[in-house]
């Protein structure tokens, strides 16, 4: 029978167990902590309430709260059809994607494009592009570290950690003013050792929505020159910040003007609604074409041992959208519509809160830019919003504005007001650093809503 043939033993250990549980090779594997962002979606999906709202993951929804397939994507899809399966086309389509992506971010007329002074490779959306760069950085600068803004997207830490490149934060967000802590940022940039690697969000910072002004970007760029730092841009929201793809690339264009040789991770998940297709691009600027080829070959090799190449369907779609002038025009309009709707929701949410007589300052809702609003809500309040109101967001109080609609904005405003309104303690807490992201966070039992105002704040 099975038991007689079943000889699984842990290495070097004999089993003295009862027959209740079979020993396994994997006994020492502990359950992984849930990813904080997908944990929110999971909790949302498990909630049966008809009023539930998912403000967790940064995915755009239309005003009906539905995922949106862009018209430009449908047009591109009907044109590419099944021809994309032929594996022989994949290299040429990949190169096309890289060229089009580079033109989009660096500008069609940029010298970098004309002289083909960049190494580029299609990547698995923004995550994949960051990971490829992190691997590349580890390979050629094994002793380096990566400076990440505080706060930043939670997965950035995971990426650099998994390639064994230590990360360090530089100050970015000012919790009191809920805006950019520019002086501290410049200070940290100055104090970092020369030639450090920095990750920057060029627009629509995730999670805070707080971006430097154009003038501030120029100053940052100058300081980077003096310090010879390497700027790596994570471009996940080009078009989503202002509605204009050219404007949203301003920071990068400034760095290019100043002669920096940057690296750039681009994602088409949000601005083309291609989340599940995993399309992105990693580019690294070089001195010349020859160096570009060398770096590209290294990036290709890194990619080959991780997954080969990204899937062709998404690459073909993006390639088509960016290279076909008619379809591109449709896309640009659609990006504007998405960004405009989000801005409108920001205004609506803020006005609703003010109308409710909230004692707190909600200016940051409209000051902040892009997909996310760093609400300033603390963990207790976030927990309550989920428990009592079935509204889900990440524990740091980040609201994905893409999930706010005209139908749910009042409910949302009411709920936020409820959990923060009559609470002087809450007002104090809002001005402290309750925003820090901790990926170990789990919701603990914090009592009923009656005790929230006092007991929990003290418990925190």
């Amino acid at each position, binding site marked *: 029978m099975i038991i007689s043939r*079943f000889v699984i033993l842990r290495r070097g250990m004999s089993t003295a167990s009862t027959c209740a549980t079979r020993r396994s090779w994997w006994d020492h594997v502990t359950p992984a902590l849930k990813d904080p962002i997908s944990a929110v979606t999971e909790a949302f999906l498990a909630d049966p309430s008809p009023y539930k709202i998912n403000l967790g993951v940064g995915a755009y929804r239309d005003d009906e709260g539905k995922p949106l397939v862009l018209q430009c994507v449908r047009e591109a899809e009907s044109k590419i059809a099944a021809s994309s399966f032929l594996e022989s086309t994949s290299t040429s389509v990949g190169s096309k994607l890289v060229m089009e992506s580079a033109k989009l971010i660096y500008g069609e007329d940029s010298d970098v494009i004309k002289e083909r002074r960049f190494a580029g490779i299609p990547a698995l959306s923004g995550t994949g592009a960051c*990971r490829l760069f992190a691997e590349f950085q580890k390979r050629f*600068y094994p002793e380096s570290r990566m400076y990440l803004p505080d706060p930043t997207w939670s997965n950035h830490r995971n990426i650099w950690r998994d390639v064994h490149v230590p990360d360090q934060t530089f100050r970015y967000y000012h919790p009191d003013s809920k805006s950019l802590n520019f002086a501290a940022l410049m200070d940290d940039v100055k104090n970092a050792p020369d*030639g450090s690697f920095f990750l920057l969000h060029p627009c629509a910072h995730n999670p805070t929505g707080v971006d430097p002004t154009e003038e501030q970007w120029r100053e940052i760029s100058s300081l980077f020159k003096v310090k010879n730092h390497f700027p790596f841009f994570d471009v996940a929201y080009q078009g989503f910040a202002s509605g204009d793809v050219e404007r949203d690339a301003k920071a990068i264009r400034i760095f290019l003007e100043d002669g920096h*040789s940057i690296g750039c991770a681009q994602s088409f998940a949000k601005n083309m609604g291609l989340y*599940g297709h995993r399309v992105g691009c990693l580019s690294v600027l070089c001195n010349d074409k020859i160096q570009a080829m060398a770096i590209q070959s290294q990036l290709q090799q890194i990619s080959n*041992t*991780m997954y080969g*190449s990204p899937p062709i369907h998404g690459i073909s779609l993006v390639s088509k959208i960016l290279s076909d002038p008619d379809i591109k025009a449709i896309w640009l309009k659609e990006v504007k519509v998405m960004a405009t709707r989000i801005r409108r929701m920001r205004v609506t949410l803020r006005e609703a809160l003010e109308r409710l007589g909230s004692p707190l300052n909600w200016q940051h809702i409209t000051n902040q830019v892009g997909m996310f609003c760093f609400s300033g809500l603390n963990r207790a309040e976030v927990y309550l919003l989920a428990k009592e109101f079935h509204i889900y967001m990440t524990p740091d109080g980040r609201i994905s504005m893409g999930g706010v609609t005209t139908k749910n904005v009042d409910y949302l405003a009411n709920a936020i007001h409820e959990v923060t309104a009559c609470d002087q303690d809450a007002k104090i807490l809002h001005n402290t650093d309750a925003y820090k992201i901790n990926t170990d966070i789990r919701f603990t039992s914090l009592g009923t809503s009656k005790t929230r105002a006092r007991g929990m704040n003290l418990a925190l």
Partner: protein
Amino acid sequence: MASSVLSSASLSFHGIHKGKSNLGGINKGKIDTFIKSKCFGRISMVAASNVSRFEGITMAPPDPILGVSEAFKADNHELKLNLGVGAYRTEELQPYVLNVVKKADKLLLEKGENREYLPIEGLAAFNKVTAELLFGADNPVMKQQRVATVQGLSGTGSLRLAAALIERYFPGAKVLISAPTWGNHKNIFNDAGVPWSEYRYYDPKTVGLDFEGMIADIKAAPEGSFILLHGCAHNPTGIDPTPEQWEIIADVIQEKNHVPFFDIAYQGFASGSLDADASSVRMFVARGMEVIAAQSYSKNLGLYAERIGAINVVCSSPEAAARVKSQLKRIARPMYSNPPVHGARIVANIVGDSTLFSEWNAEMEMMAGRIKNVRHKLFDNLSSKDKSGKDWSFVLKQIGMFSFTGLNKAQCDNMTNKWHVYMTKDGRISLAGLSLAKCEYLADAIIDSYHNVS
């Protein structure tokens, strides 16, 4: 400004030299040449643009397999033959998009489903059907929920997830790979930080399996090693163990407390039957062993470019499977967050629909059948044209897309230089790229290279 740029640049070189050694030839003198050559008429540019910190990076060595295709493309000879890449071709030597795939793709287009993020572990419908396809829908391990299945990016991506899992939970444990094996296996384990060594597999004397060597090497490996096995249609040799030999391999692996790690890239392509080609894996699972298995739909559904596959870990309990799955997800998140949706939907639709699934089975039989026919024709031609009495039957015994011809490097060069037949230098030919019409020509080329070149 220029001097600070230079000193920062040389700092970087110091950094490079301190680190890993596999960086190719970094020439310290290069940077000075750069400054001189690039900046003569553009001194202001040195001040304007920082020297690239990736200055010393050299070209990565070209991929040997893709290099064959490149060389083939550049050749203008009318009789040229590309037997390099393992991509299926029709008798007319054209790439082939399966009809079921076209149908499934069209259905997707019509449905117009959203493109939201998949969960980190991939499309649930896909994960269900892929595990059922490999282990059998009625397999007890499926019912007992003892399989951790995570959608991966084809075989490569799935192997990489498994490698990362091994590195994390069995640090120092070795993976044993066959000599020879698919070229990318070692690269994957290298980049994942997993040590590996080889077990004997191919016997050039018989152009067959060195079974005794294989068993001896598996026995000699430190207890608790991971043994990488090709489920069917071994790449690159085409030589598979017999069912009896598989049983002995399983015995030894159990005896030595190793973990069987299957790479199944050709399910359906070996015999033409999806079930039959899974029999080696199923036999190990039936013995109650915990098994790792990576799948790919690149060849059998022609979905090369969509990167669809899966990693399966059969555990002794559903609880262990849940834990393992959570850790595979934790590894995938900082690699690419979640896998691509398109290929997963196509496979889920085909395998999950009984009509499409039957059609797929038929197309699979057709593709594998064409390769079998080509093998027979090649064998017939070799036997009849070669008067030396050499035994060419290994061509028939080998299975799947590839065949190891037994030709050495010089003979392979002759194949290319004289006969314009493109193949990899290890003597591997891809029968998927051979048509019945060209068998005779190929036979001539092989006979010539074998007898007249050493």
